């Protein structure tokens, strides 16, 4: 194992790279020798473990609107420099910068097999998109938090540059990619749970083994003034699809939702639909799809004027093993279609 410091290339945007502010966000990709801007305190945090040999700078707008060209330019610049590791950011809460950092890292890893680390605020929109594919260390929301962001970034950059086998995210100091690796430990689960409970009762610190997701509180939508005048739509997480599952919807860990025409049917006919869902006994809904998509009742009520009309498509996915951020994306995408279609209210069936 060599004692030479690792060679590190640092990616920054036009602002932190010293080119200019928002008015320079369209600049292309350029390279400067050594450390620039935040690269200087980064070098101090790295000490003798690594040297910032060069800084690659890209405009945030350029990167986001010329993705292929920007990625290629970064790969070309980094390829010439042959570093052991590439570090991007910190991007704090700047969304375009976060995306550029993530894309720069992904491009370098794919094209050059050089390990990378990015740094940004945990709620930067880029984190939700890229966290599973990248090592991202946390920063504060604003540039004023730079100093605190650098030690975890520097430490993980060194580990990555050494191609060390990494431990849990919490120990390595990054946000976590959502990958669970089984390990053997001395104490049984019962012993560890009791130790945790004892600490909790004594007011001593303890660390959860399973962080629970904090659900976002969504305020209720205001009520419809008059449902008789409303256009409704039906959405289901029962995994109901046309027989044969023509679009190969996944039975679990859904990655997409689908939309299918109701085509003027008065009720759903058995044999024309099936359930693809790994989480519940499907035989009842297969025998009568109206159990999970109550079209017969909806048709009857529409005829009686209980509501104005039904959007002639239904939205479906299999609601099992869906990560909340993925579900959130589904909701936003479906809502956009519903709004464009003038839908006022939704009946959503969940199994």
């Amino acid at each position, binding site marked *: 194992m060599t004692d030479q410091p690792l060679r590190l290339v640092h990616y920054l945007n036009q602002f932190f790279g010293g080119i200019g502010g928002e008015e320079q966000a369209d600049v292309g990709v350029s390279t400067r020798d050594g450390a620039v801007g935040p690269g200087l305190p980064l070098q101090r945090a790295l000490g003798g473990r690594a040297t910032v040999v060069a800084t690659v700078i890209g405009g945030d707008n350029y990167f986001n609107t010329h993705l292929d060209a920007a990625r290629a330019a970064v790969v070309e610049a980094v390829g010439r420099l042959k570093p052991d590791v590439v570090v991007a950011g910190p991007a704090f809460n700047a969304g375009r910068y976060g995306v550029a950092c993530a894309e720069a890292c992904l491009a370098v890893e794919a094209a050059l097999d050089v390990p990378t680390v990015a740094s940004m605020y945990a709620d930067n929109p880029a984190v939700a998109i890229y966290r599973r594919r990248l090592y991202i260390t946390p920063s504060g929301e604003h540039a004023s938090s730079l100093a605190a962001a650098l030690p975890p970034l520097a430490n993980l950059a060194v580990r990555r540059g050494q191609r060390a086998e990494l431990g849990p995210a919490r120990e390595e100091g990054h946000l976590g990619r959502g990958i669970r690796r089984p390990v053997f430990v001395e104490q049984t689960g019962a012993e560890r749970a009791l130790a945790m409970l004892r600490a909790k009762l004594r007011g001593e610190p303890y660390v959860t083994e399973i962080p629970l997701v904090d*659900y*976002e*509180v*969504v*305020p*209720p*939508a*205001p*009520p*419809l*003034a*008059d*449902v008789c005048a*409303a256009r*409704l739509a039906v959405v289901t997480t029962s995994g109901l699809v046309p027989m044969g599952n023509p679009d190969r919807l996944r039975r679990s860990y859904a990655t997409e939702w689908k939309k299918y025409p109701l085509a003027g049917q008065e009720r759903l006919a058995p044999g024309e639909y099936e359930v693809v869902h790994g989480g*519940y*006994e*499907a*035989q*009842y*809904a297969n*025998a*009568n799809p*109206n*159990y*999970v998509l*109550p079209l*017969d*009742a*909806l048709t*009857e*009520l529409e005829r009686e004027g*209980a*509501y104005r009309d039904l959007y002639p498509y239904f939205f479906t996915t299999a609601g099992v093993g869906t990560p909340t951020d993925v579900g959130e994306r589904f909701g936003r995408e479906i809502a956009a279609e519903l709004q464009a279609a003038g839908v006022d*209210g939704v*009946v*959503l*069936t*969940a*199994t």
Partner: protein
Amino acid sequence: MITAMTTFAENVGASRIVAGTRIQNPCGHPALSREQDRALRRRIVQTALDALERPVEGPTVFRPERLVV
């Protein structure tokens, strides 16, 4: 939202929750006669329509009235 998992739906913050029949068949019950099953399904959907018109402050469960069998 029509679901049999009303407690879970409340915990994750769904606003208007109509108590469905069973997880496997939230809108009706295969043990009922055809007429009763359709009447139950209609009642559940009607409850959903009513819920859309009701102001709610947070997660609220609406229970369709029991049918007299």
